[in-house]
């Protein structure tokens, strides 16, 4: 459980897309992002820390999210990530791109089964 970083193999860039999506609901810390992903995917996506935190660093590097220290719900110091304007725009683009990709994959799979 979670110890294995890549319990689920995701397409490259997908994790970043999902993180951006979770942040659309409001700022969140790393643990919260992982929780949301798990809950929203009905426990399918259990993202390991060694995938999650490098992905967050990539988002910081692209300036799609920004990070601020604040107090968590149990009043501990935690780092909260917020979507930036550029991140919001990126999410839109990525989403379209992802939809196109999924449709394409489905087409390929269907074509295979018909043959």
């Amino acid at each position, binding site marked *: 459980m979670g*110890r294995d970083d890549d319990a689920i193999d995701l397409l490259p860039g997908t994790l970043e897309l999902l993180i951006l999506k979770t942040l659309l609901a409001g700022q969140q810390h*790393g643990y919260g992002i*992982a929780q949301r992903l798990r809950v929203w995917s009905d426990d399918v996506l259990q993202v390991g*820390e*060694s995938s*999650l935190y490098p992905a967050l*660093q990539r988002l910081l*590097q692209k300036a799609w999210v920004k990070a601020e220290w604040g107090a968590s719900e149990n009043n*501990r110091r935690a*780092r909260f990530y917020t979507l930036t304007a550029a991140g919001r725009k990126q999410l839109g683009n990525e989403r379209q791109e992802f939809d196109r990709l999924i449709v394409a994959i489905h087409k390929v799979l269907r074509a295979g089964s018909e043959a």
Partner: protein
Amino acid sequence: MIAEFLRRIRYIVTLRQREAELAEEMEFHRSMTAPAAFGSSALAQNRSRDVWIPPWLQDVVHDLRFAARLLVKERGFTLVAVTVLAVGIGIAMLQLVLIDAVCIRGLPIPGVDRVLFLGGRDSHDRDVTLSFREFDDVRQTLTDASGVAAFASAPAVLGDEGRAPDRVLVTYVSAPMFELLQERPLVGRDFESGDDRVGATPVAILTAGVWRSRYGGDRSLVGRAVRINGTPTTIVGIMRDRFRFPNVTDVWLPLSAMPGITTERRLARSLSVIARMSGRGTLTEIRTALAAEADRLSRTYPATNAGMTLTAMRINDRYNGRLTDSVWIAFAGVGCVVLLIACANAAALLLMRAARRGHEIAVRASLGASRGRIARQLLVESALLAALGGGAGATLSALGLRAINSIIPDNTLAYWVTFALDVRGLGFLIAMSAATVLLFGFAPALHLARTDVSSVIKSGSRTGFATMRGQRWTTICLTVECGLTMVMLAGLTLGVRSVRENGRKFFVVNPANVLTTWVTLPADRYRSADARRSFYRVLQERIANIPNVSTVAMATTLPLGGAAPRTLAIDGRTLRSNEAPPTVWTVTISPQYFAAVGAPLARGRDFDDRDGLPGYESAIVNQRFVDLFFPAGDPIGRRFRLPDPNVPPSEAASLTIVGVAPTIRQRATSADADPIVYLPLSGAPPVSAVMFVRSLPDSRPIAPLVREAARALDRELPLYRTMPMNDALDVSQWNARVSNVLLYGIAFAAIALATIGLYAVIAHAVLERTREIGIRVALGARRARLVGLVAGRAVLHLLLGTGAGIGCVFGFERLIAAGGGQTATLGHQLTDPLTLTASAVLLAIVTIAASIVPAWNAARVDPVAALRFD
């Protein structure tokens, strides 16, 4: 992109804080989940770092850190290696800067490749400049060019109210000159075509240098009048700093202000002409047009233009030194040789250390380091050394350039020749440092990366790895190095011998208590020979009347200041059919010259006031002239002529020898003393002359009194380069002194490098054999035999090196000869036995010096420690 790059940089700068934040953040995460559910935080940290810093860069940084720690730990080694590289890079860089300034960089003109120098080649196949008439013809032929302009330079006097007159160099330029060079005045305006007409109001443009030094940079000077050669002239503009086209001009005047310019004959070829090609023009088209025009001119004016062609070349080809000249080949060769020696040394040092590190490398290889990884680590170490060496080398070359610049007198080098480290120099530096890494770092890196792990570890020795291969490399390096050093030493020996003989050349002259000063008579007021003759006579009388002055004389040049070549025809002797007439050198002097410079006549009499006047065509010749042309019998009273090439010898005046002078050298570079003919000043009073004023010992400085006397005679006559004769001789020998700085600097560096290299190799050999020596001592070997063991090694290298060296010296001379040059300085060859012996002895001394310390160490080996020294 840029913003992201900046974020990466900020991350690297605040790396520690960022990683601490990440750790804290993950700590929070961990506290929220079950301990077992959390993955590896170290992996997350590493991956996060990889996001910001590319992994290869992290590796390089790691290698650099490791290398830096190693260099600090082995301070002695680092110091020696960096010094070696600094000397090599510093000297090579100095030479590249000099070569770049003189041969490569060229004139600072925008679009310089489109600017051409136009000249001619006369019927005797000599390069000539053009006359005003020819310039006019060319200007009208090249209608397609975007500008054609002519210039000529002459000394002049700049005077105005309230300031002492200055001797300046003026250049007469035709109007589109600055436009053609794409220069605009800093203040005021350019010449206009209206300024360049006969009868126009006289105008002038000043250089920024004169404007600042003489007028304190006063902008209101533009529009005011000054006097140039006595003519009131309005300053209309001031050019930018450091622009002194064509060479070291102070003032520009319109071409029409040049005396007699528009009435000049076709033969008066005094104008240099430049042109700028238009956008679509080519050099071939220009040459075709010029060929047609030359053809037309030779038909229209056969008397002056028959057989003459017009030539065009890129202006840089005209003004740059030619890299193919033997002097530059030799110069660049020396730079490369020193750099190679330095690299060979650094390689030997690295190999020596590599031998010590064999064990470490083998362990690393056996723990899984790939060969590429090990080689890269070693290359990074070399690169760090090269970077340090490059930095120190740049400092060294900057110091050298400062020394050279301080020797070169003002107004000697053309304005575009500056010896300074600039961006190009920096480029050289980086390229050279990188080249040295490849040269000295590669062999050891390959060598070590090929280490056979099991054999080294099995041998149980920290030092005994691959010694055969190591020795072969070091022997090759060292032999090459000795060979190159030998070339340097031969050059140094030769240089020292010529410098000593240079010293002897002054033996006959006694420059103490002599003041020298130059005077130039403005052409407009002293046009006739009579006017100049009588002026000089009165000036000398006035100065001779100054208290404490014992002798006054004048001449056209200083001793060692050069002389004018002429062909000699001796009365009553005829040349064989294909024999070239002998060349002699002439200096024009006043009476008392030999007394003034302190070199009394050997025979005969001095000139008096009548000599040189019609009916008294006399000459004094030097001893060398007598030895060459009148070896038997009394030369006094014999006659000869100095015919012009284009005039039959019988029409030249017949000169009678009245005296024989000691041999005073006029040319520093010639191997033997030249035959010199002294002609009387009254015969052809020159426009410019140097005056010698000898005063009694310990008298007050007389320079102000001499100036006063000149001013009393002509208020607008500047004396310039006024200084003691000793200084004047030094200044005139500036190029010899620069050569000496380079020669001694390079030779000293070569000797130091050779010593270090030999030391490194011999010490290494001793270190490798420590165990063997220990056993020998334990078995009772005497100390003397151990020293002999080390010395034997040194002697072997010495013999190999001397052999290679003699080969290199001969090869070097052949190379120079093939380039059309000669290595003989003052009659000595690099390959003459004395030079070779002296350099071999020097090399032996260097070898002994380098092997003393290792031999001493070998003799003191403690057998117990040595046997444990695995």
